[in-house]
């Protein structure tokens, strides 16, 4: 779901740059207020983790590939605002160094996977977990937070692809950018995620959540009682 250069029209990618930059500003302010310097190593590890987990391309035989992103579990462990920065940094590096995702689409890709995904995952987790601190309810909440988070990001990307033929066509009526309409883009992207990639994201979210609950539950942002009511 790393949208390459050329697939989005300027009327799509320019505003999305604006939105992402606004979120980066808010996120940095928030991190400065909430985070202690002791957490910096974890922030670095979160970015490293997101970079690595995205390397695990999963094939659907006869179809396409996809991968987990890790933005959900990072939001649960370190908070959604921290996830915004850690995961955005990853996309910027992937784009400039490895050509994965377009430079014109950095705003769009960060919006989908570094903004929509961590917040949707964080809200889903909090909503489902209620006041539970462990057990099946937390496991279910963690799974669904990864599952719903990644699916939401994928749907946003599919929506961006799908509106292109409507908003940008040449004089001959041919699309200028991404050529497929919503009726093709949404099912094509949703299918792989609903059936496979988001499940992988959910399972990974549960595994890491359990690991932290066992070894370092104090660290888990979404399990702390204070400070994040207003997110």
């Amino acid at each position, binding site marked *: 779901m790393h949208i390459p250069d050329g697939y989005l029209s300027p009327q799509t990618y320019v505003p999305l740059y604006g939105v992402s930059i606004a979120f980066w500003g808010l996120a940095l302010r928030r991190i400065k207020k909430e985070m202690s310097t002791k957490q910096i190593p974890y922030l670095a590890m979160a970015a490293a983790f997101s970079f690595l987990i995205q390397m695990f391309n999963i094939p659907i035989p006869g179809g396409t590939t996809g991968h987990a992103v890790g933005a959900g579990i990072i939001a649960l462990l370190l908070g959604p605002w921290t996830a915004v920065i850690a995961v955005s940094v990853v996309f910027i590096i992937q784009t400039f160094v490895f050509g994965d995702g377009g430079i014109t689409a950095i705003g769009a890709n960060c919006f989908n996977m570094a903004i929509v995904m961590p917040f949707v995952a964080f809200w889903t987790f909090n909503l489902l977990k209620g006041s539970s601190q462990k057990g099946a309810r937390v496991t279910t909440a963690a799974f669904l937070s990864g599952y719903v988070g990644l699916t939401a990001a994928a749907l946003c*990307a599919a929506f961006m692809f799908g509106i292109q033929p409507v908003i940008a066509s040449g004089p001959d009526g041919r699309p200028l950018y991404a*050529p497929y309409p919503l009726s093709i883009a949404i099912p094509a992207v949703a299918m792989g995620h609903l059936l496979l990639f988001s499940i992988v994201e959910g399972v990974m979210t549960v595994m890491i959540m359990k690991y932290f609950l066992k070894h370092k539950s104090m660290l888990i942002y979404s399990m702390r009682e204070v400070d994040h009511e207003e997110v």
Partner: protein
Amino acid sequence: MKKFEKKLWLWLSIMVLLSPLGIILPEKFGVEGAWGEWSLDVLEKLLGYTPEGLKKTADIWKAPIPDYNFGGESALLSTKIISYMVSGIIGIVLASVAVIIISKLLFKKDK
């Protein structure tokens, strides 16, 4: 570094070693790539033409290590595997250094 942090970095190193699965598995199943990330020639084949705007912007950036691969598309699988792991290491070094610099700047302003 604290013991727990060391342990987490160890897990991340294991991920680097396993990362080539991310190219081996798709190759094994003959799956090309993600939906919507087609190169120009693949798109041309799919559509019978290349959208005008897309053609103009598709190649505006030349990445130093395209597709996490030093050897180019025709490289041996072993070259691709090594490139992939090295890319993983480069990626985590750049990502963590960038994040640390951002955080340091952020907290320096505080004082």
